[in-house]
């Protein structure tokens, strides 16, 4: 499934559902107990060779593994075995969208100031258009994870925002 935001022709590419996990620390502080490769700074993201986010630090004691590849699963299992973490399977909880169009930032700004949010942190867990979301980006490719049951509303809202933003006299018209 891919979603095109009509007013700007922005393609939001819905990625296929993959096995995913949330890893939650049982004991804090956890950072000292984790092996190398864990994104331990607030909002840090680990990317795979294809430029996909594979481990996102989405809370002080919480990581999301949206694509449970072997590498990150090994890291996670080690932590679980060591008694540091618990893994919850959350396959299907998040719908991952990828967008390579730069104008998505302007559309998202109808709801959040994405530039300010991602200035200090690689990813952020927040509410976008009233939908629970996780957002990260790398080299202008935005990854937007929306809690699945909200996807229809998210699509409606982002389409409206794009249409409003592209209207004559809208932000692009008023701004010089």
């Amino acid at each position, binding site marked *: 499934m891919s979603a095109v935001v009509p007013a700007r022709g922005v393609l939001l590419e819905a990625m296929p559902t993959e096995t995913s996990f949330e890893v939650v620390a049982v004991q804090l502080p956890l950072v000292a107990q984790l092996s190398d490769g864990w994104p331990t700074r607030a909002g840090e993201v680990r990317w795979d060779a294809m430029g996909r986010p594979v481990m996102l630090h989405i809370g002080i004691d919480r990581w999301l593994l949206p694509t449970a590849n072997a590498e990150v699963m090994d890291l996670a299992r080690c932590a679980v075995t060591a008694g540091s973490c618990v893994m919850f399977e959350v396959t299907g909880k*998040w719908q991952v969208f990828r967008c390579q169009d730069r104008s998505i930032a302007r559309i998202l700004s109808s709801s959040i100031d994405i530039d*300010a949010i991602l200035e200090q942190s690689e990813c952020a867990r927040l509410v976008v258009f009233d939908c629970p979301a996780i957002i990260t980006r790398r080299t202008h490719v935005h990854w937007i994870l929306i809690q699945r049951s909200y996807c229809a509303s998210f699509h409606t809202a982002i389409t409206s925002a794009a249409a*409003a933003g592209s209207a004559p006299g809208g932000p692009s018209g008023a701004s010089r």
Partner: protein
Amino acid sequence: MRSSSPRCGLRLRDQPLSFSFDGVEVPAQAGDTVSSALLAHGIRLIGRSVKARRRRGVLTAGPEEPNALVTVGMGPALIPNVPATQLQVRNGLAVRSQNRWPCLRWDLASLLQAGGGLFSAGFYYKTFMWPSWRSYEPMIRSLAGLGSAPQACSLAGASLEHLSCDVLVAGGGPAGLIAALSAARSGARVVLCEREPALGGELEFESALIEEQPAMAWVDATQTELEARGVRVLLETAIVGGSNGQVIAHAEPGGLPGNNTLYRIRPTQLIIATGAVERPIAFIDNDRPGVMLLGAAERYLARYGVQVGRRIVIFGNHNRLYPAAMRLRAAGLDIRAVIDTRTPAQLHDSFVAGLREALIRSGVACLLGHVVTAAKGRAAVSGAQIAACCEAGRASILSASRHVACDTILMSGGWTPATHAMLQEGGSAQYLDEVGAFIAVEQPPWRVAVGAANGTFELAALCRQAGAAGLRAARSVGKADCAPAEASGRGDPQPDVVAMWRAAASRADEKRQFVDWQNDVTVADLRTAVEEGFCDIEHAKRYTALGFGTDQGRLAGVLGAGILAELREQPIEQVGVSRLRQPYHPVTMLSLAGLRIGNALRVERRTPLHDWHAAHGAVLEASGLWSRPRYYRTSGGAQVAQAAHEEARRVRTHGGIVDASTLGKIEIAGPDSAAFLDYVCLTRAGTLKVGRSRYAVSLREDGMVQDDGLLLRLAPDHFRMTTSTSHAELMLSHLEYWRASEWAARAVTITDVTDAWSTIALAGPRSREAVLGVLEDRSRAAVSVLQHMQWTAGLFRALPLLVLRATYSGELGYEIHCPCSIALQVWEALVACGMAPYGLEALDILRLEKGYLTHSEMTGQTTPYDLGMHRFLQRSDDFVGRALLDRPAFHEPARPRLTGLRALDGQSAFLAGAQLVTIRDRSHPCGYVTSTAFSPVLGEWIGLALVARSIGLGESLIASDPLRSSETPVRVSSPVHFDPSGERMRT
């Protein structure tokens, strides 16, 4: 005035346009506003005042315009109260004047002027008493109000943008530009908002040099540099409010609502350079078409090439009357007189004195120590009455007056700094005598005013102040890469305002000395307010409507305060100014709503089966944020009752499935998870075996029932809790709270998996066959021997899922928890096995028949005792809510108890919400009905109720429903109406 040749102005383009005003076509040029085009075409009468219906023309050239408000469009979707001074002309635009009937020139209601003081301040409190207010109300309401309210909305939705920046500069005049330039050169991220379509502010007409360049050339160069430095310049965007460090700006392209944008800007530093609003002066008939602010006349000339009159009298109280007179004269206007209220001793500036001499030499009468006492003329200005005053700056005894013929009076009583944004979130107003106005002081460290907004009017000083403010703002955010902008400027002289609020007049004439044009507030009204004890500025404002309306007191606020000070014989500092409210400029409701309109008003959560439901005749309803099937049209009836009865009957006789994916699902894991759940739930988790589940109830700390659901033990240290749909977030928050507080040192983790798992619930005698029918062979054995409340893993087409034997309806039932990716396939397979879907209505009927809680009983005010959960309370250890469960009040006879209800006659209906009263005492309810339904298997209306414990089973009560005018005799019964032994679910 009227001219057929194209006009030249800073904002005009040589492109002819036309629009209609009251049905008459008016030629214009691209860039014109409606007011500039009307003035250029010689049309001066543009509206009528709201109360007295006096003729009104254009007073200003900005958004503070009180008179020239017009209605745009026709039909029900018109847009009223658009300032003609802001409204850009476009071809085909249809504009109508307001507050008149049948036409602008001849208005019937203007006859009310003959009533003299009929509409004085507070008139409606004092008059229209006999025979009653109601007799007059329709007429007054038909006359009241600015314009006509639209009946429909045709506006395009507004867009919204969140921005953040290091420095936000509000205002694109010289001070704003220099401040923005200074901050940007220092490396700060800058956003600049300007409410006009072009930058420059007063530089558009002021004879100024900046950095030795003509002012507008400097403006162009500065704009280019700002854009090159990445400054975001938002034109036609006004700051309209803000709080908590967030600033709200509103863009209204073309001055017409529609296609608006609301900006939510979070600046680290805010520089207010919004300039100042020129102030009028109160004299007799100062509202005649032809009386205008001096600055407005200069703007019309510079921007649009419009000469607002031919024979001009200029009236004011400061130095800048003279350079303005020189410029207007140079443009070809006949300046008849410059009337300066100041005495010769108050004219200090030699440059100004030189200008005055030059004007006198060219034949202009320049009178010091004089005032314009009245505008002459009936439909429009035909002259000015002038008199010498004995005490400059104060209304005083007048000498004999003289008449000067003119068609325009341009007045200027000084300037009111635009301090609106400075008086929110801290900040107070302080009167500056040398400016004759209030400025904002006591500002928080992140906000500063510069330029005219700070009472600094002289260009050189303004440039220094703004440059320093921009640099300071940049430094405060750690930016100081480059040298600041240090523009030098030379422009009009320091104004040297000597405050003067009104010309002296007899009390009778004070009724024609206007202070607030939009609300017809006169000096007489203010005098009445003072005499009747409404002395405080806030009281006087509300009593007279001073500063109400679209301009929010920008024109009239300080003028009214000055006149009140005179009337009260107090310094104006003691009178103060009224509090300024947001929004500072009119904002359409549509802009405030943003994207939250229509279907987007609230988010909707959908289950993975949503599309299937919609495609199979489901009537969906909101259940919290979720959209759930209420019933299916395909179930045997178009009406909800028919369909629901059929669905419920089918579950009892055969079987059915319901989409229960909306139930909250929270997983709790970790070595201490069982102990944690023992603490936060009323029911024990520690004794639950892996592979089993248990009904779980949780209490709040005050002992009230919070929610119920099921608890499944997935592994020794891993549980899944299901919650009711509407309490899922609440329960997650509840669990997180206890985990993060009392249990912070223990090994427990929680995560919400509601969206990861779909839940399909089967019920009915054939449900076992259906479950076994969809599972793979190797799963069937384990599922077929499941006991009540046991679960096991299963396989569906090689994909894992979880099967739990549990019931919502008292029937043999199962829950299938499956990954959402296969929910549709599982559902369709069950349907193919003969399970028909049922909706919430049928589910409620089934639950009610069994006496299961429908959540109307968990109101947050019921205890486990009230709901008959005594069996869970046999615990000796501690748990959330325990401490308060033993309160005596929880055990009083008046406490409610969950009971069943049945109609005494077995047929009559009674509805939820009805109060229960005894036959002996109908005035004191002893309970109320929480839920009811017609039971298709029992063939009668049944219900659940919370009834005082003193009422015994079998007692007769009356379900009294005064709202629906019904009284139904009912009998108190056991809550379990159907299959009380529970035989069916244990089959």
